[in-house]
């Protein structure tokens, strides 16, 4: 890489900043809460207030698939067609009015009410994993605990049967696949499509009352979703819901290891957990930004954003905005952090928020109750090479099992 003296969001990838995402943000803030990043060729928005404002501005659009697709050379176009089609049917890459319709399809099964019904199952998964792990004294928090937990929850939600769950392993982000023009995931997507199609066919015959059943019921009630739309958005649930939650749990464990007093506080007062989950999300989110395209010229904060410009909303920087949070670089589980930006803001606000809050609470609550004296087995656990995803690729720790098997302790996790 050539020498340069401009600061850029891309610095996160430079060796000297490796892993120090928040140090990069602090440096970038000197350029103002919103400014043009010439290397990224995008506006970067770092302030909490500014991210909230711009997330609500309907002149900024999340529909960014077709533009990219249209400018591909013909040969790549045919390669990328299946992925482009699936992505274009996902709510995340659509704007009103289609966005509302697509989101409406999945919404009924991700309401807080529905998630409450899933809660015992989620707690059951966490407990079963720890029953296996607690006596070993060592684990990789990512591979042994967080990943199987979030995978099984998504499989449960999306109706992926046990014999097809391997299709959810080592999932690579579909958007990343698309932007790097990779066809590596085509086979898997086709297999999952077959699983979902079969699932929908069975539900047509009237089986149990899960997500697919509800989708079929909605269709009978006159909502005209095509199979393609349903399948694309099931893929989105897997894409958006698995690695994000897995790595949020990993980041939360790492944060608690750096703040042992906060871990002790949570062990003493598990009722603080629901609030602590928001603080984990604020403190170190697995997703650091999201991108929009300007559909029209707009003035904001003394800047002129032009039609066609890319705008990067750096959620992870807003979460550490010193104008919004006092002592932003400390993890304080008693903080009121519910207004963090890690789930985005506005119409695309994370549809899985209620579900992942429960997953994170069950994961961290159970781990705290069942184990103590956590120690890093690798002083510098490895981060994925990415400017957007704060994913630990492994988090090996040692610990001692909590005295007694303390099954009763898990009942402490609040009941919604």
């Amino acid at each position, binding site marked *: 890489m050539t020498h340069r003296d401009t600061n850029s969001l891309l610095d996160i990838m430079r060796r000297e900043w490796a892993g120090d995402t928040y140090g990069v943000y602090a440096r970038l803030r000197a350029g103002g809460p919103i400014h043009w990043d010439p290397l990224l060729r995008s506006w970067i928005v770092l302030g909490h207030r500014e991210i*909230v404002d711009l997330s*609500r501005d309907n002149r900024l659009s999340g529909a960014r698939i077709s533009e990219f697709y249209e400018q591909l050379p013909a040969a790549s176009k045919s390669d990328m067609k299946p992925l482009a089609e699936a992505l274009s049917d996902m709510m995340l890459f659509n704007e009103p009015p289609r966005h509302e319709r697509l989101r409406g399809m999945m919404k009924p099964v991700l309401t807080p009410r529905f998630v409450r019904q899933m809660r015992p199952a989620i707690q059951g998964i966490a407990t079963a994993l720890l029953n296996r792990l607690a006596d070993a004294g060592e684990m990789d928090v990512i591979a042994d605990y967080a990943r199987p937990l979030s995978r099984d929850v998504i499989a449960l939600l999306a109706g992926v049967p046990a014999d097809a769950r391997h299709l959810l392993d080592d999932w690579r982000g579909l958007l990343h696949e698309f932007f790097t023009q990779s066809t590596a995931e085509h086979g898997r997507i086709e297999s999952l499509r077959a699983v979902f199609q079969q699932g929908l066919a069975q539900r047509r015959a009237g089986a149990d009352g899960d997500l697919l059943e509800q989708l079929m019921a909605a269709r009978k009630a006159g909502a005209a979703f095509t199979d393609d739309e349903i399948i694309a958005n099931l893929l989105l649930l897997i894409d958006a819901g698995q690695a994000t939650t897995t790595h949020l749990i990993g980041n939360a464990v790492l944060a608690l290891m750096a703040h042992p007093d906060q871990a002790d506080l949570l062990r003493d007062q598990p009722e603080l957990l629901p609030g602590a989950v928001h603080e984990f999300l604020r403190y170190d989110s697995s997703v650091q930004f999201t991108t929009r395209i300007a559909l029209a010229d707009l003035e904001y904060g003394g800047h002129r954003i032009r039609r066609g410009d890319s705008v990067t909303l750096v959620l992870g920087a807003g979460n550490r905005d010193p104008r919004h949070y006092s002592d932003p670089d400390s993890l304080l589980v008693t903080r009121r952090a*519910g207004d963090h930006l890690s789930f985005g*803001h*506005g119409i695309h*606000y994370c549809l899985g*928020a*209620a579900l992942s809050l429960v997953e994170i609470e069950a994961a961290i609550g159970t781990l705290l109750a069942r184990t103590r004296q956590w120690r890093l087995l690798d002083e510098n656990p490895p981060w994925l090479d990415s400017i957007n995803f704060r994913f630990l690729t492994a988090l090996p720790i040692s610990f001692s099992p909590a005295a007694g098997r303390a099954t009763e302790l898990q009942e402490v996790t609040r009941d919604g």
Partner: protein
Amino acid sequence: MNEAEWRLSVDRATCIGSGMCTSSAPEYFALDDSGVSRPLAERVAPDDALLDAANSCPVEAIRVQRIPDGAVLAPAR
């Protein structure tokens, strides 16, 4: 839904300012200066969009009640 009016409220201590209700039903909700949602009118004519907003709020901070008897119409339990 029938003719009676509905009462709309937001529990300000619970709302996390996700901006969902204010984006999906801007004629009923607005975020105030502290980033918390506030109903624009307390009494409103029945509208399914309100049930939808209350059922979708990630922290169930929105409540829709039937005026004469206070029955909670949403969020559904």
